[in-house]
């Protein structure tokens, strides 16, 4: 176990290092500089500004300054909003994004599993077909399209929910539905197919023969084993939800990290681009790492230190 964790940890560190370097290279190949739009800055001011942000140093020196910034997690002040540091922006945006993402994934997991169980128990009946049609639709409709339709229906036509911003639980309903539907559909399909497989196993027959109640059979015996594949794809779903927050934050005018990221790219705000990318990536990679470990802990059949043969 420990060896496995160590191995995963090394891979995690390498991935992060590559992202950090890649971000640096890409960012500095973006045409244009952060001071392009500032008219009337004379050369002395420009030089001063560049010196302040270390932009006058040779690239490799900037790279090391940057590595140091990543290591200490201090990205310095934003270029476009000099009064705020990158950490300030992250501190403001991240809790909002996290809230949006977390609520969505919880809704997705719970409703997806329930939908999957119902479909599996009513296999080949009308309920099964309805549930699976909902699931395929959920996978097919992109979240930003769903968001626009939700706003149209519930905010504009019915006027029962607010269309944008992030200030009360009522404001959270539409964005979280838009974000949770896709992952919910994926989880429902996966749960259904593994449930169908598990329900034919001998130990389920055994449990039935013992006279256990159907609810106990489903939740205590079948579901536990059917959930393993769901745990494995949680990492991927999380990545999807994180990127989904980008576009939904634009549509619903939610002041999260995605908003700062897109803004910073458009304004070449180097420190903010670096900060958000590195932070996002680190968060995501750490989550994938956690999912892997949790998977190993949940399923005793998997010996983590052995080489996986697939």
């Amino acid at each position, binding site marked *: 176990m420990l060896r496995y964790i160590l191995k995963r940890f090394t*891979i*995690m560190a*390498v*991935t992060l290092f*590559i*992202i950090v370097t*890649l*971000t640096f290279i*890409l*960012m500095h*190949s*973006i*045409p244009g500089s952060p001071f392009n739009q500032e008219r009337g800055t004379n050369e002395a001011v420009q030089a001063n500004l560049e010196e302040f942000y270390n932009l006058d140093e040779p690239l490799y020196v900037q790279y090391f300054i940057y590595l140091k910034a990543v290591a200490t997690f201090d990205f310095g002040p934003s270029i476009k909003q000099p009064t705020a540091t990158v950490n300030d922006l992250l501190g403001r945006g991240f809790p909002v994004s996290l809230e949006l993402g977390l609520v969505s994934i919880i809704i997705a997991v719970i409703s997806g599993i329930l939908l999957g169980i119902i479909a599996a128990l009513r296999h080949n009946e009308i309920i099964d077909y309805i549930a699976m049609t909902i699931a*395929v*639709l959920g*996978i*097919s*409709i*992109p979240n*930003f*399209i769903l968001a*626009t*339709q939700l*706003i*149209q229906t519930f905010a*504009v036509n019915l006027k029962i929910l607010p269309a944008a911003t992030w200030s009360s639980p009522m404001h959270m309903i539409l964005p979280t539905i838009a974000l949770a539907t896709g992952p919910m559909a994926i989880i429902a399909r996966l749960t259904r197919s593994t449930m169908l497989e598990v329900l034919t196993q001998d130990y389920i027959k055994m449990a039935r023969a013992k006279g256990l109640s159907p609810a106990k059979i489903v939740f205590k015996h079948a579901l536990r084993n059917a959930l393993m594949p769901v745990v494995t794809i949680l990492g991927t779903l999380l*990545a999807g939800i*994180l*990127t989904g927050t*980008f*576009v939904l934050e*634009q*549509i619903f005018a939610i002041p999260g990290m995605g908003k700062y*990221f*897109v803004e910073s*790219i458009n304004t070449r705000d180097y420190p903010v*681009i670096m900060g958000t*990318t590195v932070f*996002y*990536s680190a968060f*995501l*990679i750490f989550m*994938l790492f956690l999912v892997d470990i949790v998977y190993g802990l949940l399923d005793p059949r998997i010996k983590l230190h052995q080489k996986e*043969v*697939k």
Partner: protein
Amino acid sequence: MGLRKEVNNQHSPSVPDEWFRPINRAEQNAEKVSRPSLSYWQDAWHRLLKNRLAMTGLVFLFFLAIMAIFGPIWSPYSVTTIDLPNQNLAPSSSHWFGTDDLGRDVFTRTWYGARISLFVGLMAALIDFFVGIIYGGISGYKGGRVDNIMMRIVEILYGLPYLLIVILLLVVMGPSLTTIIVALSVTGWVGMARIVRGQVLQLKNYEFVLASQSFGAKTKRIIRKNLLPNTMGPIIVQMTLTVPSAIFAESFLSFLGLGIQAPYASWGVMANDGLSTILSGHWWRLFFPAFFISATMFAFNVLGDGLQDALDPKLRE
């Protein structure tokens, strides 16, 4: 052996001739193959034909492909020409899907968007196909240290938040169709490589591979002639599912303003333009691109599901 001989010798003379009867026709033909034997692909095709949902998807995609090719040609309107007097017209006999805020025909733009979406999807799938097959094939077949190193690289790429990288690449290279396809391919092949590798890893221990090896076949030939044809099923399914995710990525990026740029039409661009019409009531400007993105992804998804059932012998019941 001796015993049976003895038994036969004892009994054969004692069986009277009238006990023998000619067998009836049905029994005589029992061993004959009555129907033409089906190859794997014919069998799969028959299976797919029976799947109504998948066939609906296939027919829709066929229709979409035809409209994507000929729609903009048949239409009397241009995709980009601005016609301000006719802005925001509701769907009518002259503009079937209405016009947008610059008077451009939404019908024409929708099919132009179909071109872009299908093109991006197919190109992404093709690039994934080649890179994934070569990489996964080599990794799985070589095994050992080569496999170990190649899979570590895949693991690292797999962990990259691909959309962030794609967005950064788009900003660096400038938004264009080529950039989107390149950016999507940079990380997209990883899933395919994993699948091919897993399949090859299983297949390479079979006797027919050993037979090829003992005849002196080279690695390249074994991968191409022995291993890949046998993994085609999962590869095709993976490709069908790559297409909708590429279409999603393109429209997502265009929606954010990082993809296809005005005045050209992509469904993502049109949806983004249409977003502002939610309040003004020009519903057709959002509805048509939204509907076609969703319907296309739906069609590819059900087709992929159908293919999976049709091609995977293990799931047959």
